[in-house]
């Protein structure tokens, strides 16, 4: 089965609203990273957060390692936030990174 599951699959917001994205994983992970993929396809890392809470700009990620879940909170969404958000985990001691199926976010003006 899918090792990394993300929800919701898609999300539509009005500009200014907050977004909450979830990631659940079934394997032990040494690293968890959130990526943003633009509508044009480019993929960039947003932040890595194997455990605890981490902030950067309008993004907050909270990972509860024991429960194998992570969330990404986007506050005051902007139209430029539209795209696909991917959660990826680094399976312990394998150099293997497994990506989730993503959450497609659309922020309307």
């Amino acid at each position, binding site marked *: 089965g899918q090792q990394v599951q993300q929800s919701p699959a898609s999300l539509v917001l009005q500009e200014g609203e907050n977004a909450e994205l979830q990631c659940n994983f079934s394997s032990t992970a040494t690293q968890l990273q959130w990526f943003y993929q633009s509508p044009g*396809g480019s993929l*960039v*890392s947003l*932040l*890595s957060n194997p455990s605890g809470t981490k902030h950067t700009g309008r993004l907050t990620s909270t990972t509860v390692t024991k429960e194998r879940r992570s969330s990404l909170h986007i506050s005051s969404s902007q139209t430029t936030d539209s795209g696909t958000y991917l959660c990826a985990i680094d399976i312990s001691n*394998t*150099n293997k990174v497994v*990506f989730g199926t993503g959450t497609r976010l659309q922020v309307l003006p």
Partner: protein
Amino acid sequence: NSKVIQTPRYLVKGQGQKAKMRCIPEKGHPVVFWYQQNKNNEFKFLINFQNQEVLQQIDMTEKRFSAECPSNSPCSLEIQSSEAGDSALYLCASSRGQDTQYFGPGTRLLVL
């Protein structure tokens, strides 16, 4: 264990010099990714290929890097004119598709 091979493991260049690194993907993996990993263990996607064709690349890659994945030869990534900010670990990963990526050990570039 991953069978992605990257060479060299370490590379030291002066500013303005070219820096070239190579990657042999795992056998049977048509998709190859290059990432730049910073000190915070975050990795930035640079470019990916399916067989010999570029699928996606970021602006920086298009402007400053030369990359290719010829058939029957290693993939390569070359910075045309190295800058101090290019110092990082460059990771190559291969995949059968778009989900699980198997990473090589990386090439650590230091630009003096």
